[in-house]
């Protein structure tokens, strides 16, 4: 049989496997993927060396199919074999190395009894200081916290809980989530956030939203925040307070382009395409929306809008002030900014002791809060 014939058989098995997986029969889907891999390997064997491009694509396909069939040992062995033979073009070598990274991660997860399921959220941070499988720890910790904050807010909003201005999420909601960090594929740093079923289901059963519904809503909120915060976010989140919270939390996730360039959010069970992409322009659009959403300040003739850059040294939400240590000329080293009642704990919390940009109104030597964002 020719490459074309073997490949056609493999295609059919792979298409059936995908449909079966979508229908929820993971075990049967894995069997079909293994059959597809077997046929694809035969297709590869039937190729002559001069078909370099076809060899490369087919070799990647073979390893990907064994990987999808959760036959990790065979997938790993095949990838090493094709790399060692040296008969495939550089693009395929690179893709095989990426696949090996995914295979090792999956094997490690399998050993630890962890299995990705629909609803797991994959977050990739790319560009800037982020390198192959590595990123500044502080950046990743902040983004993990940021994603978790959006998830908590999503559940609180879905459960119609009173809007939370101070403190962390209620403990009952906190027990629903457990973040996991995984090794990055090449070119980015990636982590996965998983929602975990609460240990005491009985206490929850009545009120708890389904995990699938939470992540679907989470994706919708993030996508509206990133792609069309001015219009779509209005439709998805009609409540003004929650809308403002989501816009602020989404801005915390957005890059300014210095430390990193892009943050992508994917459904771990279907990671081919990001559901949401935060780029530097997302931050600009969110800034405009946040400006519209914030309450107006009574104006005085002597008002002067100022931008303070420095380190956020202290916050007292109950006493309504924050302190910025700034080294900018023309300002005192420590500036107290008043009337911060609009600020939310989960928005400003991750900014403490970090460089921030505060927008304020100066009136008679006092500073009144308008906005704060991280200086990434």
């Amino acid at each position, binding site marked *: 049989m020719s490459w074309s014939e073997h490949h056609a058989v493999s295609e059919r098995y792979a298409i059936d496997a995908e*449909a079966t997986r979508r229908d929820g029969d993971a075990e049967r889907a894995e069997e079909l993927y293994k059959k597809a891999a077997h046929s694809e390997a035969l297709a590869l064997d039937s190729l002559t060396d001069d078909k370099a491009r076809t060899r490369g694509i087919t070799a990647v396909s073979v390893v990907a199919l064994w990987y999808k069939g959760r036959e990790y040992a065979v997938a790993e062995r095949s990838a090493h074999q094709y790399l060692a033979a040296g008969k495939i073009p550089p693009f395929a070598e690179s893709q095989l190395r990426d696949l090996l990274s995914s295979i090792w991660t999956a094997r490690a997860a399998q050993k630890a009894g962890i299995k990705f399921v629909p609803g797991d959220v994959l977050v990739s941070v790319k560009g800037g200081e982020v390198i192959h499988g590595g990123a500044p720890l502080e950046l990743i910790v902040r983004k993990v916290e940021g994603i978790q904050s959006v998830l908590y807010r999503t559940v609180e909003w879905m459960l119609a809980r009173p809007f939370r201005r101070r403190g962390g999420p209620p403990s009952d909601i906190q027990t629903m989530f457990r973040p996991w960090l995984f090794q990055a594929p090449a070119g980015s740093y990636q982590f996965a956030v998983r929602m975990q079923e609460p240990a005491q289901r009985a206490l929850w059963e009545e009120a708890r939203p389904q995990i699938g519904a939470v992540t679907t809503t989470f994706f919708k909120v993030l996508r509206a925040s990133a792609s069309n915060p001015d219009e779509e976010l209005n439709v998805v989140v009609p409540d003004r307070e929650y809308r403002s919270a989501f816009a602020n939390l989404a801005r915390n996730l957005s890059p300014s382009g210095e430390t990193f360039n892009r943050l992508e959010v994917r459904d771990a069970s279907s990671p081919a395409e990001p559901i949401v992409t935060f780029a530097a322009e997302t931050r600009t659009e969110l800034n405009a929306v946040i400006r519209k959403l914030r309450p107006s300040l009574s104006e005085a003739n002597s008002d002067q809008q100022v931008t303070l850059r420095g380190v956020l040294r202290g916050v007292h939400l109950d006493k309504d002030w924050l302190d910025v240590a700034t080294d900018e000329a023309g300002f005192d080293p420590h500036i107290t900014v008043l009337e911060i009642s609009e600020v939310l704990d989960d928005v400003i919390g991750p900014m403490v002791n970090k460089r921030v940009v505060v927008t304020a109104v100066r009136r008679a030597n006092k500073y009144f809060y308008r906005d704060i964002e991280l200086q990434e």
Partner: protein
Amino acid sequence: MSSSFIVVSFTRNPALMPKQINLDGMHERHHALTPHIAGGYREAAAVCLNRHHSPPVEITLVDNGQDSLAELAWIEPDARIAAAWANDIDATEAGAYGCVIAGVELARGLFAIRRAETGTGADYYIGPQHSGHDLESCLRLEVSGLSGGTSKDVSRRLIEKIRQALEGDSNLPALAGVIGFSARMLLIQDVEEKA
């Protein structure tokens, strides 16, 4: 007495009719699509389009920056089909595959001839119909779709898609296609090969 009849037939001038993006019977023209997959793509596209429009609609088709208009028709989905494609993300992805593959067929005369697996999904390879004895001269197709959003968002997604294709450590020639279901816009762009 005999009577005579004058028959007047009103037909549309084909030269003035917009081109049509054909979602019907795609498996008969595209070797890489099985009847099941093609049917799924057609249903998903109908669900996505029906969220914003009534059939038929005129779509702005932009191929490498050249604008033209094309008509896109679909059968309004019944409750069963709508329920089957209730997941917004799955529907948008499948609907985008259907519309972009049909759009590339119309704009370039190319067909989805093969499909190959990757770690995160599958790539379609496009080429002239009945080609596909190997993948030496095929283009890889990168597909994306937006349910909502404006034409600006669709253009932004295309740039993003091209950036992803270039980042992918693959120097294979590729074609990127993005459909905006609300924006009624389909963008197709060659992805330049890396040196």
